[in-house]
């Protein structure tokens, strides 16, 4: 994706939005036919903004919401043509004309399909070519503008001063304003005094209203969108409205009797023009002059209620046309769900469990936070090598009698730091609609991560149940095959890792050469693989290279449960010294301070984290409260919360997960004066982070923006030492309260981050 075609795609999308806006403006103009032309002229401002400014705000009143468009709220650009069109196996666009699907299908069927064999997608090449044509058009038009401007400037060199900023010239056929910084009025020689006063008043009005700047700006926007015929039409109409509203302003300044003289001036000057000005090929309807003269003659001081109505129409059109539609969310409710299943593992070792209805609520809540968005190309899930999909959650729902299936694909977005075997989980939510179309939705990263943790928890608990129940579940029949599966998994991967490089004696080289196999232990093996390998150690079946590899895998799987710190031991020595630390179960943190708002926030955050926590451990949170506002019966609190989940093995703490996420929490005061959680708005991730925070930094009831708050939150986010310190303070308090005398937390480099005996942790 080159920057140029990226830019072109943005312009193309803006152009499509602008086309809708232009059509509506043209229709509203008809409505305002009888109103002062000023209103029609003002309407075009909306289009100008749409053509130049790629971003917009979202509102419930957006006209574009009536169209069938997926809003990309994260960038503020509506996308009909995806930036990733070059990477789609079957390129499609969506114009948003829901009722006229034939347009889309006609366009889409003409788009070239990706050729899997070719290294470059034909659509990509097309986009590159089109963007070059677009650029060429801009260059040509800019050159034309600059050259014609220079030409006219040269003609005007010999224009002679009349007075002030008025010059007369024998080289021009009509009066106009020229110049951007100090605009001057140029008048043709030989205009009668009567006409002159009107002409000058007209041009002065242009200057007062900054028209001489607005028009070039509009023309510049037109150049950017030169491929859009609707914009040429709009520019012509806008110029008309500009002139007519200028005429009206002149009449307001002079008096009503000026009508006759003014219209005669218009007439005589248009007659004077000799054959050199050829008829405009874009001519349509009655000539410009005729329309203007009629407008001048019919001009009356507008009636009060016409003014009011026009103002209302103008403001209404402004809001509905300037704003983008609110992003639509999935709207699942418990009643609609028919079943949920979770499939994990890759093709060759898939296993599917169905999820209990008790756990549905959590998933529905998660899915409902998903925004419809195109997932950036680099995060696209695939069944291939790069980002294999490891979990698919399938939700079958029945909405308004139509079956819908959501499948949530959780896949590894490999970190650059592959050698740590760390993954960053990304999620993509696929929603197949009843019309057979599939839409890709995106979950904010933080939500995704929680969901992933939660899903893994469910899977673990299900599997544990199956093992503990000694076969009361439907998976019992697989029990034996499960153990043989695990044995096969471990042995297969170990033998592949041991296969090369034969020349080395360093076990790490073997692991480095087979990262994928090494990772399989963590992806598919987990606790079961650990148990199997420990039995191998017990049986003395862990010698040499095999033992070295197994020891490394076991250490990593054990994490903080490994009590042996001596790294020099042989695998069998290590196993002899190993006594797996037992987990000490602790409750979640509880706030014991007096501050009513802090109490609410702590309770909410703990509640949220524990609801999605199926994986054990205890939760500590540390919120920073920026501000809280109470309006009527709503209380809105703005926080950034550092939340972390720990497990305690013996006296070793292990951090199992954590997040630092800004949020706005809204509570409603009920009759008894208690505050009930009403809404929890969380910052989005990636490019949605900033806009999502700006979006929720508003008053709870009136929705007015709270100035400077978002910036405060951003600033803090880059340096959150304070909540880190608070987190450790709370952790210390919590451990003490639970009579833990000694506990240490080490970071991934093995340095002590936190210690009860020496609580001077670094901020």
């Amino acid at each position, binding site marked *: 994706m080159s920057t140029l075609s990226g830019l072109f795609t943005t312009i193309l999308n803006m152009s499509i939005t602008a086309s809708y806006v232009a059509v509506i403006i043209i229709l509203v103009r008809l409505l305002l036919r009888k109103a002062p032309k000023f209103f029609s002229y003002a309407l075009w401002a909306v289009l100008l903004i749409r053509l130049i400014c790629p971003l917009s705000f979202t509102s419930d009143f957006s006209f574009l919401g009536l169209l069938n468009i997926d809003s990309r709220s994260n960038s503020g650009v509506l996308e009909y043509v995806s930036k990733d069109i070059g990477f789609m196996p079957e390129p499609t666009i969506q114009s948003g004309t829901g009722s006229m699907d034939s347009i889309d299908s006609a366009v889409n069927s003409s788009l070239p399909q990706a050729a899997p064999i070719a290294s470059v997608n034909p659509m990509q090449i097309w986009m590159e070519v089109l963007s070059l044509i677009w650029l060429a058009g801009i260059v040509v038009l800019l050159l034309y503008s600059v050259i014609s401007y220079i030409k006219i400037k040269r003609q005007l060199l010999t224009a002679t001063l009349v007075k002030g900023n008025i010059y007369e010239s024998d080289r021009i056929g009509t009066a*106009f304003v020229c110049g951007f910084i100090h605009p001057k009025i140029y008048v043709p020689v030989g205009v009668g005094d009567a006409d002159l006063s009107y002409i000058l008043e007209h041009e002065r009005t242009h200057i007062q209203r900054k*028209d001489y700047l607005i028009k070039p700006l509009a023309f510049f926007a037109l150049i950017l969108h030169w491929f859009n015929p609707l914009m040429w039409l709009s520019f012509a109409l806008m110029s008309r409205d500009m002139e007519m509203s200028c005429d009206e302003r002149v009449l307001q300044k002079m008096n009503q009797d000026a009508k006759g003289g003014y219209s005669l001036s*218009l*007439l005589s000057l248009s*007659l004077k023009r000799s054959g050199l000005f050829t*008829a405009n090929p874009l001519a349509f309807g009655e000539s410009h*002059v005729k329309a203007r003269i009629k407008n001048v003659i019919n001009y009356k001081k507008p009636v009060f209620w016409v003014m009011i109505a026009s103002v209302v129409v103008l403001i209404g059109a402004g809001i509905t046309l300037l704003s983008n539609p609110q992003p639509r969310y999935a709207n699942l409710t418990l009643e609609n769900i028919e079943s949920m299943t979770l499939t994990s593992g890759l093709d060759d070792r898939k296993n599917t469990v169905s999820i209990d209805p008790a756990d549905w609520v959590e998933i529905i809540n998660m899915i409902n936070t998903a925004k419809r968005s195109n997932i950036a190309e680099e995060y696209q899930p695939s069944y291939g090598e790069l980002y294999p999909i490891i979990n698919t959650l399938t939700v079958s729902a029945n909405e308004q009698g139509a079956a819908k299936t959501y499948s949530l694909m959780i896949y590894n977005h490999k970190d650059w730091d592959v050698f740590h075997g760390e993954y960053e989980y990304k999620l993509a939510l696929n929603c197949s609609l009843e019309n057979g179309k599939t839409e890709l939705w995106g979950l904010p990263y933080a939500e995704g991560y929680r969901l992933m943790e939660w899903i893994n928890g469910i899977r673990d608990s299900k599997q544990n149940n199956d093992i503990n129940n000694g076969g009361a579940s439907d998976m019992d029949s697989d029990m034996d095959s499960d153990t043989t599966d695990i044995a096969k998994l471990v042995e297969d991967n170990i033998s592949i890792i041991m296969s090369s490089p034969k020349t080395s004696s360093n076990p790490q080289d073997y692991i480095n050469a087979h990262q994928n196999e090494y990772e399989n232990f963590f992806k598919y093996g987990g606790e079961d693989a650990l148990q199997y390998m420990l039995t191998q150690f017990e049986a003395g079946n862990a010698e040499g290279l095999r033992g070295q590899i197994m020891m490394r895998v076991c250490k990593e799987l054990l994490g903080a449960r490994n009590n042996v710190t001596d790294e020099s031991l042989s695998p069998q020595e290590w196993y002899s010294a190993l006594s797996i630390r037992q987990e000490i179960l602790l409750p979640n943190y509880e706030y014991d301070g007096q501050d009513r708002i802090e109490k609410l926030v702590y309770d909410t955050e703990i509640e949220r984290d524990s609801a999605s926590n199926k994986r054990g451990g205890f939760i500590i949170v540390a919120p920073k409260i920026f501000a809280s506002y109470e309006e009527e019966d709503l209380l809105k609190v703005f926080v950034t919360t550092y939340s972390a989940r720990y497990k305690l093995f013996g006296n070793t703490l292990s951090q199992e997960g954590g997040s630092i996420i800004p949020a706005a929490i809204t509570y409603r005061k009920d009759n008894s004066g208690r505050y009930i959680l009403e809404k929890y708005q969380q910052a989005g991730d990636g490019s949605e982070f900033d806009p999502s925070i700006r979006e929720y930094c508003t008053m709870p009831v009136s929705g007015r923006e709270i100035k400077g708050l978002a910036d405060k939150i951003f600033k803090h986010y880059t340096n959150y030492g304070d909540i880190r310190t608070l987190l450790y303070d709370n952790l210390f308090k919590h451990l003490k309260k639970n009579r833990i005398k000694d506990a240490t937390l080490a970071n991934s480099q093995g340095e002590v981050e936190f210690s009860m005996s020496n609580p001077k942790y670094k901020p």
Partner: protein
Amino acid sequence: MEKYKLFDAEYKFASIIWDNEPINSTELVRLCADKLGWKKSTTYTVLKKLSDRAILQNKDAVVTALVKREDVQRYESNAVVEKSFNGSLPKFLTAFLGDRKITEQEAEELKQIIEEAVK
């Protein structure tokens, strides 16, 4: 003596010289800036053009006229526009009127409309 034809701006320029000749060219530049709003370069360009056409002469920085005021005829401005102005105005300038002429018939029609209205 044949009649010399001058454009409007040239005529105004020549007028300054007839009124003030002989005139030092530096002084002429000052006068033109003052009366016509011309840049120095414009003054010299027009001076050179008219010297080439043997209407003025510039000798040792002193400018004099070679023809008399009564031997000069001004062009009709309409004719001038035809001759010297080619192409239309750039689209992005705000003009009193656009680049479109009206037919005789239309003009008649509009005259009547205006007369009706102002009666």
